[in-house]
């Protein structure tokens, strides 16, 4: 279930990149000088970092790591 939710989150964020709702306006100017379209895309990058954190926390391919660790242990004991 967690993985399905993460896949949905990735797809949702991918489509949220296409922010047509701020396409033709610069208003409001965030902090008085940052156009809203640029501010949104900046926030999108932060959201991407948060999503990556969720992926690392809940979908990390531990099996690959374990396989390599096991191989290294075996090689170490053979030496």
């Amino acid at each position, binding site marked *: 279930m967690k993985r399905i939710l993460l896949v949905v989150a990735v797809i949702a964020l991918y489509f949220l990149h296409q922010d047509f709702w701020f396409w033709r306006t*610069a208003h409001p100017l965030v902090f008085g000088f940052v156009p809203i379209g640029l501010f949104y895309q900046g926030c*999108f990058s932060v959201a*991407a970092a948060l999503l990556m954190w969720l992926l690392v926390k809940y979908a990390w391919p531990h099996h690959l790591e374990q396989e390599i660790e096991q191989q290294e242990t075996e090689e170490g004991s053979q030496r």
Partner: protein
Amino acid sequence: MIPAIFVFIYLAAVLYIGIFAFRRAKGSEKPEDYFLASRSLGPFVFLFSLFGTNMTAFAILGSSGHAFSNGIVTFGLMASSSALVIPITIFLIGTRVWALGKKFGFMTPVQMFRDRWECGHIGTVIFVVQAALLVPYIIIGIMGGGTTLNVISGGLVPYWFGGAIVALVVMSYVFFGGMRGTAWVNTFQTILFLTFGVIAIVVIGVGMGGFRTAANAMLASPALAPLLTRERISPLYFFSYTFIPLSAIAFPHILIFCLTAEKMNHFKKTVIFYPICILAIWLPCVFLGVMANRVTDVPQIKARQEARRVLATQGKTMAPEARDELREQAAGDDVIMLLLQRYAPLWLAGLLGAGIMAAVMASDSQILALSTMFTEDVFAFYGGKRRFGEAVQVHTGRIFIVLITLVAYAVALRAPETIFELAIQYAFSGFAALSPLLVAALFWKGSTKWGALAVTLWTVLAVVAVALFQHAVPAPAPGPPLVAWAIGGTEVLSRTPGGTAVFGFMPVVPMVLVSALLMFVVSLVTRKPQQATIAKYFQF
């Protein structure tokens, strides 16, 4: 000349890092040590060097120049799309390639493809295509170095000498330090870029009297207000750009870098912090590029704006050559340097110039990747390693580094820069079209070598076709595209002011989709590798 002195100090520092890495290797002549730093990079160096490897001169100079001409859309097109797509590809593909590299000893993508699909010469075809798409980066890096040193020194260092110095420094630290030296230099360079962005925005912001006045003045100007929105860009074009970052993981130098991590755990920080690093570098550069349009007392910036105005108002009646010339005059790749010269004190401009130099010199990892690929995919594969041994393989790699740098420098002196800028544009689409190779090799048991060959040949065909089309049909003036082929009122193929459109999308979209389709269809009808080979890749 003071800024140039800072740049020379910077060049000496990176040279020292390379030599220090050479001493650290303690005379090891093992290919895995020279080409992959013995797969031993720690989390900090891995994050910053992988990120730095992917940040070329375009991240600082190109992004601000593009934003100067096109506005805030630059960030959404090139930065935020990469902030999502690149870390996902590192998470899904990079980690798996790292594990396979550790398990089976792969050092290049082609080695993995040859083993995965039980092929020899098809791997060589993939090597040739990857190398051909990578060479323009090396040439443009030397050109960028020559130009930057020339500008920073106020013309005292001629282009040919600046290019020679940059080529010599890059060649030396790659030659001596191999992957360890390159990774350390990239880490140092990334820290410089990150510092650069923050300092540049503060210094220029203060110099301009705050951005609030500049932003409001731009909004009040009918010619400049659109730069604060995306109204001049079509949503399909914007969407197309999300396909470009697929190229990152398909670049051999990025994939080879993924093999250098000591532990898979080190990918975690890279995946999480990659979007933040992109934000930290691109946001200030894009914002400053846009704001440069409000600077009224720098003659070079005024000249670029005037060229843009003439192009927009009279471009339609001009000859294609005159339009191209105006386009070059309107390009703002140097706006960030002009802003620094105008607003930063001399010593700070020098320090920041070193940051720009760091971005320009990102061709080191491409040179090393080409050398790794040549020695592993050609020299070792065709028996050189077996006959002459590992030490000769490393020496061959070093000789290759010298030769490729000399050839790139010779070409950089003679050929016009625009040719290679165009080649890089094609290379991004080309590597994106090659990305289905990795997905199929790692995630689809049914993929075959013939599917891989079809993807590779299609990529070559598509890149050449787009290049020929753009050569044959000159770019129109800013405004509606020139429709070359339409069916029943639907635009199939158009020439836009910035390139080509297929059904309104950039060529990269059909290129990637057709690649994926070819891999699927051709693999379905051709013979699969043996079960034992497939099991190697899918039973862990």
